[in-house]
Structures are given as C-alpha cells and as structure tokens.
C-alpha cells in the first residue's frame, strides 16, 4: 500500500483557497468541485484528489499547512480511504468537475 493525498472537504469548503490545485505537479489530479459543501452553507466549493493519479509527493500538504494554513490535506494509505475520486468517475462540466466517490481499491 502507499500514501496518497486526501482532502477534508468540510475544512476545504470553508475557505476554498484553491492553492493546492495550482501547486500539484501532476496534471488533472487535484480537481475542483464548485458545488461541494453548498448543502452545508458554503459558497465556493472544495478540492478533491483523483487518487489514481496521485504520486504521493505531499507538496499539497505543505502548501495547505504552511501557505494557506488550513490543514485540510493529510497523507493517508490508499486502502484506509473509504471513498475517493478516481479519474473514470470524474465528469467534466462547463468550468466545473464532479466526482462520484468510490472505493479506490474496488473502483
């Protein structure tokens, strides 16, 4: 098993800084859902990780902890994450993306 980044969307949706999406060295990996958290009263959405593309470098963790100071991203073993986004479950819309979360190991 290996580590991948996992974003706590309840913390992320409260600030919606989008820094991690800009600092990830992998393309199409940290995605953004403009609708996330709206059911909880947040306005600007939250980021999530396509775990099948994540190489586990943890740059986003440093950026979230030290630049944004939101502490929303943790490195977790991929088999310890209940549901996560996988590239095949991500749908692109006009200026937004949506993911149906599924078990990263079972798909």
């Amino acid at each position, binding site marked *: 098993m290996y580590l991948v980044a996992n974003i706590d969307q309840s913390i992320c949706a409260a600030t919606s800084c989008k820094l991690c999406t*800009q600092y*990830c*060295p992998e393309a*199409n990996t940290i*995605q953004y859902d403009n609708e996330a958290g709206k059911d909880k009263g947040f306005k600007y959405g939250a980021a999530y990780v396509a775990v099948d593309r994540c190489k586990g470098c943890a740059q986003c963790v*440093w950026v979230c902890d030290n630049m944004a100071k939101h502490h929303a991203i943790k490195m977790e073993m991929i088999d310890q994450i209940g549901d996560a986004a996988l590239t095949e479950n991500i749908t*692109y819309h006009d200026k937004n993306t949506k993911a149906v979360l599924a078990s990263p190991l079972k798909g």
Partner: protein
Amino acid sequence: MSLDYVKFTPGFGKFMPKEYRDMVEHGPFGKKTSVSQVGTFKEILEEHPMCAGCAMTLFIRLAIISFPNPEDTITVGTAGCGRLAISQAAIPFVYGNYGDQNGVASGLSRGLRLRFGDRPKDVVVMAGDGGTADIGFAQTLHSWFRKEKFTTIMLDNEVYGNTGGQESGMTNKNQVLKMAPLGKKFEKMDMLGMAKVAGCAYVATVVPNNPRRVESVIKKAVLIAREIGPTYIQAYTSCNIEYAIPTDKVMEDAKEVENDRYKFSEYITDEAKQYLGELYGYKEYLPKPAAAVAKS
C-alpha cells in the same frame, strides 16, 4: 496546428479513451483558461513518468496552462527530464537532438510564418540547463543574435539530473554533486546577462512557487515572441533527487532559493512594452496620462 487536429471523426468518439474525450470536450482549446481556474477543466498535460514532487513538472504544467493559444503552439525540447512531461501534452512536441533545439525552433518558426502568415503560431523551446547553456549554448545564442521570434525557456535544475548528477554550467560554484565530488570550480553562467546582450526582447527569472507569476511571465514571453523578437525565461526547477530535497519540502526550498539567489527579475524592451500595451491591453505598459505624470 489548429483546434481541429484534436477532434475525433464523428462516430468514433465512443471508442476513444475517457481522457481524450474529456480533453476534446472540456479542454482549454479555443477558450481563455487561467491558472486560477485549474481543476475545473481538463488539462492538456497528461500523466507522465517524471519523479513525484518534481518542481520541473510543476513548472511545465503551469507553463502549458499559461500558453495564450495552446491550440496554436508547438513545443520543442531535447534530451533531459523535461521532455518526459512536455511530450505527454496534447500539443505537438518536436524533439531536437541534444543541443540543437533552438536551431530546430528557428526553422520551425520561420516555416510557420511562411505557411500561416499573420495567424500567430507560437513556438516554445523548453529545455534543461544542459541543453540550453552547455551542449546547446552555441545554437541558443545564435538564435538570439539572429533575432529568431520564439520563446526559449530554461528549466534550470542546476544539474544533469537525468544522467546521475554531473555539474552543468548552471550549477553553483563549490556545489558538490554525485558526479562532481570535488565541487564545481566555476561560477554559475550568467545566461540572463547574455540574453540581454544578444538582443532578447524579454528576459525573466521565475520560480514555480508563485503560479500566477509563472502564468504572467509565460504569456508575456510568448506574445512578445510573435512580433518583436526572441524571449528568454529562466526558471528555477529544483531536482529533488540530485539535491536530496524531500518531496514535501520542494516548495519550501523554492521559496528559500527565490529569496536568496533566484529573485524574480524581468527585463523588457521599450518596443515590447509598447507592443503589449497597444495590442494586448497591458495597462502598465501604456503611457501614463499627462495628469498622472504631472502628479508623480
């Protein structure tokens, strides 16, 4: 070399991989996308074999997002780490033999101007410090002296990272590396100074820990290279393997190096300022109104 070359034949869409369909339908081609929107559209860079946490990858990703017209851009590269990612983007990539990437780009740029006339087709060279300043040094400088209109980007990781850690001309003095155990004996080459002397219209240094700045610098360089002359960007893109930087500290290192010896600098000729101001609405380069001048 147009939006159409990525589109699939009607009826074949369902047989294409999801990534390809997403790229055609929700990619940045023909749209104005920016770094701040990243994560909400399909990027044209795909999965690549570069090391986890590589700052060079981050810079390449940001650069490709920042191209003003990705559907009308050709990248040219050479041996080195960078080409592993640049070649995985959905824009044409030409692989020059080691060192001749600026020669290849010169011909390409001239040919495209003959073929397409006024329609801008951007040529962007992205090569490492070895390809630009050591092995390709002559061709790089000569393309600048000839005022070839394309952008040269040096991915400066200050080492030959792909071959085990030999010193390059851009390595700092006294730096000890795996294949330079006694430390480098000479100073880092002043490529910025040489670019200015050779007649580049725009010269900038940038570090990828400021994505918006990377975007701004790339856009200006590509736009200026369309009409005015050669442009040069030198980007610090650390090699976390050869310099033993833990991957989660890569941005911390970038920040330290930026504050220390890789400060952001920008040189732009008056002609390029006027061109950007008048054609592309860069207000900071437009002449100030008479009232504002009198006030200051």
